[in-house]
């Protein structure tokens, strides 16, 4: 196989992997879509929950 072609392909694979990893990272950490509940409390604090509250102190 052409060495130049292999080098370009490797760069593309690495770039795709990097971008994909970054997107995956963003999805896990920053996107509200990964939380079931996103609300703002009376103190103005954003509360993000993956599942509804179950056991609380009041």
């Amino acid at each position, binding site marked *: 196989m052409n060495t130049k072609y292999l080098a370009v392909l490797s760069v593309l694979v690495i770039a795709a992997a990097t971008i994909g990893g970054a997107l995956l990272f963003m999805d896990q950490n920053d996107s509200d879509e990964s939380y*079931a*509940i996103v*609300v703002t*409390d*009376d*103190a103005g*604090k954003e*509360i993000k*929950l993956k*599942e*509804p*509250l*179950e*056991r*609380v*102190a*009041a």
Partner: protein
Amino acid sequence: MNSNIPIFLQILGLKDKVIGMDSLVLTKDIAGYYPGMIDFGKNDAMNGEKMLEANVKYILSPTSMGVKNTEALEALGITTITVECFGETMLNDVDLLVKLFGSKNEQVVAAERYKNMYYETVNTVLEKAAEKKVTDPSWDPSFLFQMASSRSDPFYTETAQLSMIVEQIGGHNMIRDLGGFKPATKQTARISYDVIVDYDKNEGLDYVFIRTLDAGAEASYAKFLSLSSLGSWNTLNPILDRNVYTLDTRIASGAMIFVGYVCIGEAYGLDLTEDPSALVERFNTEFGFNFSSEGLMQQFPAVE
């Protein structure tokens, strides 16, 4: 903390989600509806380790009398969620609680039932008040509103929620007319006996409302009278006209404030058919409480 959050959690059918409370709430009547609670300590030093042992990661707390050691708890992975459950955010807080617990149909329906009861009552009072203003455009009674439990600043300014509710129905807080308090930045203020008597002589004070102490209406009225160390209140118009009304603290804030609207409307002589005691009974029946429906509002001086 205070009783408002546990009361609304019961209204929404969520009391089984509560594992424990702070020491102060456990001394209140509402604790009787929550058997077997873990005592997590005082609100200024809530016990995070005990919460982790009970697998509690969230605290629902108001601002006033709420959790004070939030940063220490946050370091343990315990989040404090501020939910006032009274005042101007109260109805939004009902929706906030529903969302936090997953917006299940049972909670959505209960929230609607509560809000219907609230709006039905409050709107009736406000409609009757609007009718009164149409028939008597000069109707603008002045009032003074005392918080009997406050030692330092016993009177509500116009920025306090209860004062705003009375003004929403009709009239104006006499503190609005006192130059020294403008703009009122605090919700409560101290006014001397002389200032009240002078205002009454010059402007005419029409009503005095008193938010009661736990000790009851008579003790609260006696406390109002005791604010005068110089002389007698006997010349004050609201006393001469028997226009001093105590409002039980249970209906002066929180879930049963809509009953407070009716009481204030009655004090103002609005043409209301709603019976405050019957409203409390209905609230009890709908949401599983057993609050007393007696002594919600009392008129002073009492007839001898």
